């Protein structure tokens, strides 16, 4: 315990320097803003905090945010896995193009995505006009929010699962086939468990991104209070009304809930990693 920074002698120099810079950087970029958030909330007192966060409109918004983020992450898990599977397993013309297409939600400014989606799904839009007679409203409903969040979350799942599927040895499947396993058995018992950790990681990232998403959602959501108003919008509108403390209070609650979710998912991942045994 004499010196935790010098536990192991390494031929690579500069551990202390790089470790110091890392700590400083993390503090500056991540910890400091959080600290400011907490600090400015503490100033408003318990009653002020409860009033800012406890209103039905805020609670509905927070609930909506996490609900839609969770659902879109689940949708992305299923279809993201499928996309990754197809991209890895099958050769087809235009494969590189499709592969590049997956990154589009990363690259596109989110507001552009929001406007594009609204144009498509509005009751008079390209897709919306066919859905409207069926009684399905996408724009200006929670469904619209899920569509937008699914759009922006897709690349997270695809890009984390894809390399794992690529690295999966062909021999594993051949070994399973020789042992008499069917295609379904091989998928269920060999391929899926091997990709599960990457699925959890990708799903978590998609979920985390979706909870904070603003740009692409506000256009398609319509922002009807109690129905399709997301928590980030509440924060922005509170800021617009110069209610900075109220905004930070909502932000802190979002942060706390996100933190609990991420912690839970990390626990699951840790458990999954243990099942894989020491590498």
């Amino acid at each position: 315990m004499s010196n935790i920074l010098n536990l192991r002698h390494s031929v690579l120099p500069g551990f202390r320097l790089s470790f110091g810079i890392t700590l400083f950087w993390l503090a500056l970029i991540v910890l400091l803003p959080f600290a400011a958030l907490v600090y400015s909330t503490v100033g408003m007192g318990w009653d002020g905090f409860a009033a800012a966060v406890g209103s039905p409109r805020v609670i509905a918004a927070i609930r909506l945010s996490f609900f839609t983020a969770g659902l879109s992450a689940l949708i992305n898990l299923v279809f993201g896995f499928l996309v990754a599977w197809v991209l890895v397993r099958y050769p087809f013309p235009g494969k590189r193009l499709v592969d590049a297409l997956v990154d589009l939600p990363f690259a596109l400014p989110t507001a552009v995505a929001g406007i594009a989606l609204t144009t498509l799904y509005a009751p008079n839009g390209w897709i919306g006009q066919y859905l409207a007679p069926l009684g399905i409203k996408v724009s200006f409903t929670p469904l619209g929010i899920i569509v937008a969040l699914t759009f922006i979350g897709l690349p997270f799942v695809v890009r984390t699962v894809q390399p794992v599927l690529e690295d999966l040895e062909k021999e594993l499947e051949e070994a399973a086939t020789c042992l008499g396993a069917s295609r379904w058995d091989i998928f269920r018992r060999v391929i899926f468990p091997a990709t599960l950790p990457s699925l959890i990681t990708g799903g978590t990232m998609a979920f985390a991104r979706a909870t904070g998403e603003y740009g692409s959602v506000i256009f398609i959501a319509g922002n009807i209070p109690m129905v399709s108003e997301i928590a980030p919008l509440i924060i922005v509108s509170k800021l617009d009304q110069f209610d900075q403390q109220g905004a930070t209070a909502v932000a802190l609650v979002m942060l706390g809930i996100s933190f609990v979710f991420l912690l839970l998912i990390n626990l699951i991942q840790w458990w999954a990693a243990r099942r894989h045994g020491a590498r």
Partner: protein
Amino acid sequence: MSIEIRNIRKQFGQFTALDNVSLDIAAGELLALLGPSGCGKTTLLRIIAGLEKPDAGQVLFGGADATHTHVAERQVGFVFQHYALFRHMTVFDNVAFGLSVKPRRERPSQEEIRERVMKLLKMVQLDWLADAYPGQLSGGQRQRIALARSLAVEPKVLLLDEPFGALDAKVRKDLRRWLRELHNDMHITSVFVTHDQEEALEVSDRVVVMDHGHIEQVGRPDDIYEHPATPFVTQFLGDVNLFHGRVDAGQLTIGSYEQALGQHQDADGDAAVAYVRPHDLDLTLQAAGALAQGRVEHIHAVGPVVRVELQQADGQTIEAAVSKERFRALGIVPGDTVYVTPRKLAVFLQEDAGQQDYVI
């Protein structure tokens, strides 16, 4: 179960992996497919397993055509060079896999599976690792688990693709002997692929030497070693010295050295190559009746034999292996000139020896 391979052909693009290969494997035999990389041995093994489809030809299992039988129904056990264990399953679950994916009607009960898996794990002497994950095992342990897993479904045929290729020398030797013993106990028809001639010769009942997509020679290990049928087999099975000469009506002439051969009676002054293994060369200090002479370059005296490297006048190197006693009696030191006489030669006429000098 016996295996018959009939006129198998396999092409990968422009590359011919197997060119009209036929082979009979007797029931209960342990057969080695030996050859350099790219000779087609692994492709042949994978075709027997059904992991690869031949372009032409047939594979018969116990006399019945299995060419189009799916891998899952062929009842073959396959062991991969890099083990291919399921990393997310315990050792127990890995071995139990084949039993647990059986259709419900044929699947043994939980206790029965447990009993059979533990029996297999005992057989590979790793029952104490049942709850470990593959990542926690050494290479040799992993390969034994892979073997136990393939045996769990009681295959009719056991196929091993370079099973010891990824292991270090000591473990490899142990596992070799162990595989031999296992085969003696179980008598399951087994085919294993290797590029290591020592491994093939030591473990198997019969060796099939392959090169460039065809079979060069099939035979018992001692037979192949003593009577190689082609220059390729001669060179592939171990170190050899080459001597160029002529054969006329069964009489070999290399420089001033002459010897009557029991073969090549109809040769008419044909160019020939004589191959002599280092331990079939004797060193003498007399010039009379010598095959060649050379200057002593190096002496490696580690181990039971002394390897002496000679340089001929034309720059060619000769390697001879003599016993310690013989070496002491000769009393040679680097720089001396010594003569070599062959105890045993393998002579091939140039027409079939000409194509390549194989470097291993």
